[in-house]
């Protein structure tokens, strides 16, 4: 376990190991090919941020560069999955998902149900999301909850390199369509990752730290801010539990409720906009199922209900901060 690699290397390694294990696994997307010495025009980035670098040569014919047409290649990936392949399609920015909602919401998500369980659609759609890259309103959204809303989709949002590898391997092996959300500011983050292959089951939240005074429920990049806030609060003698959902669909309700019942004080942190978000969903879950254990109203820390600002100073204010999270914990502590 001594080896440290980045979040993007962990994703690359998961893809590579699954491609080696199962020849039905293919990769497709815009600028996915190339990198690492590919000749001529093929020497592209390996994806817009280099995540698929090197796979084109390692697995000839199985990394497909597609036209700039999400509606086309996401549909192709869904069709290929229905026909026995295990495609991993990279959609670059999750913000572009709108042009292929029919393929995802109305086709991929429905096949198993509408064919009475006789059809499977083992497609993975990888997309980067989240604010903080100074990429403006059309390239910065957190859309996890949008996909979580749709029955038939599984939705993953890893926070560490270790989780990214294990969850992507699980996503590829899963027979349902999986939306794999990668926060763009996590790509460079390093962590211990085993060289060997491993799968992390869906619907199993990670208790990042244990505590009895309050519970923070969160996912994605906010896990690190929540941990920072919790560490800050430890110095004041406040012992905070931090739960990383890892997957928003399926959702590990048991871990959330067990913790909420034990601490009675809950802060839900979501980088997404506040209405109809994971924050509201989890707050509702706790309010409905653990109401009598609550010692204070649930607090939510989210982005405001506005598009992501382009101005750096405003974008920084838009993203929930460790300080806001710590303040929210102090508020529920009363």
């Amino acid at each position, binding site marked *: 376990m001594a080896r440290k690699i980045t979040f993007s290397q962990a994703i690359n390694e998961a893809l590579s190991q699954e491609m080696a294990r199962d020849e039905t696994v293919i990769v497709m997307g815009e600028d996915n090919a190339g990198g690492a010495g590919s000749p001529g025009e093929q020497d592209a980035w390996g994806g817009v941020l280099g995540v698929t670098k090197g796979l084109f040569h390692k697995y000839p014919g199985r990394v497909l560069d597609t036209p700039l047409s999400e509606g086309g290649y996401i549909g192709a990936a869904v069709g290929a999955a229905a026909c026995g392949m295990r495609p991993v399609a990279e959609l670059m920015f999750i913000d572009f998902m709108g042009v292929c909602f029919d393929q995802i919401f109305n086709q991929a998500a429905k096949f198993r149900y509408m064919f009475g369980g006789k059809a499977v659609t083992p497609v993975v759609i990888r997309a980067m999301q989240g604010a903080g890259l100074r990429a403006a309103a059309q390239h910065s959204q957190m859309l996890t909850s949008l996909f979580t809303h749709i029955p038939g989709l599984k939705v993953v949002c890893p926070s560490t390199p270790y989780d990214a590898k294990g969850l992507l391997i699980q996503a590829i092996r899963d027979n349902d369509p999986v939306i794999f959300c990668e926060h763009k500011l996590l790509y460079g983050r390093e962590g211990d990752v085993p060289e*060997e*292959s*491993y799968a992390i089951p869906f619907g199993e939240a990670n208790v990042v730290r244990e505590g009895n005074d309050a519970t923070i429920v969160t996912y994605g990049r906010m896990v690190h801010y929540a941990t920072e806030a919790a560490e800050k609060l430890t110095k004041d003698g406040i012992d905070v539990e931090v739960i990383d959902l890892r997957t928003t669909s399926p959702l590990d309700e048991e871990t959330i409720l067990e913790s909420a019942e034990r601490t009675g004080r809950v802060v839900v942190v979501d980088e997404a906009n506040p209405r109809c978000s994971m924050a509201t969903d989890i707050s509702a879950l706790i309010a409905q199922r653990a109401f009598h254990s609550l010692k204070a109203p649930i607090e939510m820390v989210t982005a405001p209900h506005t598009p992501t600002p382009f101005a750096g100073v405003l974008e920084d204010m838009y993203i929930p901060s460790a300080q806001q999270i710590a303040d929210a914990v102090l508020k529920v502590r009363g």
Partner: protein
Amino acid sequence: MPIHMITMPKWGLSMEHGQVNGWLKAIGDRVAKGDEILDVETDKIASGVECAFDGILRRQIAQEGDTLAVGTLLAVVADAEAGEAEIDAAVEAFQRDFVPASAEAGESGPQPEKAQIGGRTVRYLKLGEGGTPAVLIHGFGGDLNNWLFNHADLAAHRTVWALDLPGHGESGKAVESGSAQELADAVIAFMDERGIERAHLIGHSMGALVAMTVADQAPTRIASLSLISGAGLGKEINGAYINGFTEGSNRNALKPQLAKLFADPSLVTRQLVEDIVKYKRLEGVQEALRKIAASAFEGDAQRAGYRDRLAGLAPRVLVIWGEGDQIIPASHAQGLPGEVRVHVLEGKGHMVQMEAASEVNRLLNEFLEG
């Protein structure tokens, strides 16, 4: 009159910091060599820091709750005659010169290595030089880190190797039948490959069964056998533990199992559980563990053992047990042949080499030297 500095110990290669959990001795208390004077918790395990000197606890430098780098001054032990000013001067001198080792410096120390042996990856760690070498063999579901508190101490006097058995740690996960014979063959192949002609074998739990199988197979290669909470010395084993460990895949399932390994279940830290969960997720681990368990155990019984032939297996045999062992009963240490040296440590559990590290190290060092 000597003034002794008690500093944050380094337990294992990866330890950089420890958190002070509490003091076990008060200022003015008389302390003897071997007494635990404070509790420290690392990201792997909690344990007591022992005093290496006789004297009086004169200063508690570290505060409860502090997280401190390895080597940081924790306490001062000195005779009654040592003057207060003298102690203050010694503390001041220590603090002035103290530079905490950086994380990078920590990584430049000996690291586990990997070799391809018999078509299989084997991870091992070699510490120390010279003497008759010793080989440490961990138990079921363990790895070379189970010797975290022992390896360096034993290596002060000889070369000490620790390896990950097939199916374990970072060694290759594939096993054929998973029998003790197959694991013993892997140990012999490892010894061949590393040029270890003859060695003291030190095995914990199932590793003890493997060590005895090696001794049975290749008696000339064995200088001595040290069997800690060993399988292969009696009939009973906690089948619920073996099954729970093998089949459990998440924290909630594994934590209660791991608690059975220690007499003091609070020693099972979050990180320890997390490390086991991560190991259990690795491809091939569950399959390997199922085979190994099925081959060695059946329900609450061990399939085979060497109890009746123990004295003849090696020139010298040492048996150590934790009295409160919940996995393999310490009663297996009773009634062994007279020439076998037996120590049962009160109030300790199955992982006695971790829970009573310095006592076990002392017993092992004495035995290996004798």
